[in-house]
């Protein structure tokens, strides 16, 4: 009986122990699973937080590159993740060359605590940029709870989050607490991941914008006008090299340099301020700087989305050439009117004389008056002929009909026609045609016109000495042609004058200064048009004023053109036009 009771007691005890052990094992398993579940929940919460913050950053920064916004978003959301006494940030203000600090106080701390935070951030930034920033100019602002200078709490935990945009430190976020041993867990690591991802996103965006900006800069740099842009704070945003060239200042000038160069000519600041305040376009200004006439256009730049001005663009266009061309046109018109008026006056006065006194006049007197009318009409016809030729050359419709011919023969004939004029001025007129000169390919009538112009100019501008005309075959750069030269011992040509010699409307000033020398100044322009349309070149050489000059032109050899013609199926006579040459 006792044994039975004893056994029952043992069995009961063992069962009870088994039950307790089972319970303990179950409990341990349950606790373990609960811990795992909690850990998973925490991890999920961190992931959710990270996603939410990144989404908020994405939504709020949009397409801007404002590092301050990223820092504010991260700073403002910290309370959901970590305990802290202060959250602060420092931002580099490159424009003003200083550092802006903002401290948001969550739990009242002392000024010493704030100073400690500032020093920790400055030390961190100094290490990151490898340059001491402790002496930098600093702006500070404190937000949130009021400071308590009685507080003895010190910074016992902190972490710094660097914000790096495109490889450059843009700022640092600091989280600080009076509690020990904080900011060492996964929650803190989430902040670093967020900071890195946000920095990368903005860096990529900045890269895209930098590319766009670079393209825009290239476009601005390639402008033929000088250009600058200032923002609403009167900071220089953009300036191109052309502006520096026009104003005669060094490249990449400051706004002060530009304003200084314009001093007394154009009040840049007033123009910018006026552009901001008025809705009307400002009238264009015209200024003269360094012998250049500049048209200044001031325009307000509006952000269409916000309908707000974002800057003012000032464009400087060099209108010196346009101005001198305009003056040239006016002078040319006056000259043409004068050139037509003189023979017309002669004709009118002569006909009036004839009308009144014709019956009383002797035959030779009458003949003399008729000769005056004839030569005056001829002069007008020649001038009008020149004007028509110029119009054709300019419109690319100047035709030359070339054929194989003896250029020497044409030269000799022209020389003879000018001999009496040369003799009248006691000038020796000589010609040298190389024996066996090959045939040239040219328009006889037009080349006569060329020779007439060159010979008449040579006689006009030579008071003593001689005029020598020469024609020889030449080989230049493997190309064979005939070279004709007309050399004189006349007034010569200055290099500066020479540049204008073959242009429209430009009659040499020195020629005009010689009262006896008159003319439209179109002759050499027409010479150039004819020679080039014939497939030749024209140029001049002169040792300078008073030292004579030599004009040269070339014409193709007939045999060369003929050989090409065989290849290209050309006929004996060919028509060229300035249009064709220009496009050749």
């Amino acid at each position: 009986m006792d044994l039975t009771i004893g056994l029952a007691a043992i069995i009961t005890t063992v069962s009870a122990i088994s039950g307790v052990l089972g319970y303990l094992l179950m409990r341990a398993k349950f606790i373990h699973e609960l811990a795992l579940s909690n850990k998973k929940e925490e991890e999920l919460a961190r992931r959710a937080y990270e996603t939410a913050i990144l989404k908020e950053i994405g939504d709020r920064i949009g397409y801007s590159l404002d590092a301050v916004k990223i820092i504010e978003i991260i700073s403002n959301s910290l309370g959901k993740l970590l305990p802290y006494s202060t959250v602060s940030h420092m931002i580099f203000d490159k424009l003003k060359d200083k550092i802006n600090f903002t401290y948001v106080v969550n739990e009242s701390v002392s000024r010493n605590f704030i100073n400690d935070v500032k020093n920790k951030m400055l030390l961190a930034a100094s290490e990151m940029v490898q340059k001491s920033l402790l002496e930098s100019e600093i702006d500070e602002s404190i937000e949130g709870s009021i400071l308590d200078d009685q507080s003895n709490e010190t910074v016992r935990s902190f972490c710094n989050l660097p914000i790096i945009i495109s490889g450059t430190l843009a700022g640092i976020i600091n989280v600080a607490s009076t509690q020990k041993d904080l900011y060492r867990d996964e929650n803190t690591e989430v902040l670093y991941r967020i900071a890195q991802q946000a920095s990368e996103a903005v860096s990529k965006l900045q890269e895209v914008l930098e590319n766009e900006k670079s393209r825009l800069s290239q476009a601005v740099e390639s402008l033929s006008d000088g250009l600058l842009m200032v923002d609403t704070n009167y900071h220089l945003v953009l300036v191109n090299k052309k502006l520096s060239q026009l104003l005669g200042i060094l490249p990449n000038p400051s706004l002060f340099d530009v304003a200084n160069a314009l001093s007394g000519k154009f009040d840049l600041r007033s123009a910018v301020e006026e552009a901001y305040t008025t809705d009307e376009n400002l009238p264009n200004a015209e200024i003269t700087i360094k012998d250049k006439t500049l048209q200044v256009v001031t325009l307000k730049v509006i952000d269409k989305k916000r309908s707000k001005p974002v800057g003012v663009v000032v464009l400087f266009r060099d209108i010196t050439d346009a101005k001198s061309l305009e003056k040239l046109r006016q002078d040319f018109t006056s000259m043409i009117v004068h050139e037509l008026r003189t023979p017309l006056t002669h004709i009118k006065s002569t006909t009036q004389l004839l009308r009144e006194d014709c019956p009383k006049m002797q035959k030779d007197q009458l003949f003399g008056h008729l000769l005056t009318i004839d030569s005056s009409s001829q002069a007008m016809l020649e001038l009008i002929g020149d004007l028509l030729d110029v119009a054709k050359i300019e419109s690319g419709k100047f035709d030359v009909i070339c054929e194989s011919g003896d250029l020497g023969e044409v030269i000799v004939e022209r020389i003879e026609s000018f001999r009496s004029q040369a003799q009248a001025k006691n000038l020796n007129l000589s010609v040298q045609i190389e024996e066996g000169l090959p045939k040239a390919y040219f328009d006889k009538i037009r080349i006569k016109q060329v020779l007439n112009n060159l010979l008449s100019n040579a006689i006009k501008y030579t008071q003593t000495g001689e005029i020598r005309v020469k024609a020889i075959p030449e080989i230049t750069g493997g190309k064979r042609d005939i070279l004709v030269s007309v050399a004189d011992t006349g007034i010569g040509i200055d290099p500066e004058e020479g540049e204008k010699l073959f242009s429209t409307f430009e009659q040499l000033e020195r020629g005009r200064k010689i009262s006896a020398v008159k003319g439209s100044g179109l002759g050499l322009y027409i010479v150039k048009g004819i020679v080039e349309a014939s497939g030749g070149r024209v140029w001049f050489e002169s040792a300078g004023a008073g030292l004579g000059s030599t004009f040269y032109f070339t014409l193709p050899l007939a045999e060369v053109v003929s050989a090409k013609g065989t290849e290209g199926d050309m006929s004996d006579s060919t028509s060229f036009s300035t249009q064709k040459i220009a496009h050749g």
Partner: protein
Amino acid sequence: MSTEEDYRALMTDLIKKQMIMLGPNLVLSKARKVSGLTVLNDGTVQKVSVDPGQALGELTNAFMTLSGQIAQMTLDTLLEKYPGVKSSNS
């Protein structure tokens, strides 16, 4: 100085610089998770019980997850100071 000593000194410098830049608690926590490293509270690497090259690699990777470019830049600067040390991250 032996190469192993160089590794230890470099890792100490790296940890101390990261502590200034990012804050001590998280940096120490990360450094102490690197297997084979014994790190004191001031960031000094007291003992390296594994291949020091491997430890440096792990340490650098741990810091790179916090501040990629900053950690890389700090490592590059330190590698110039310790020419005998080779890093898989350099």
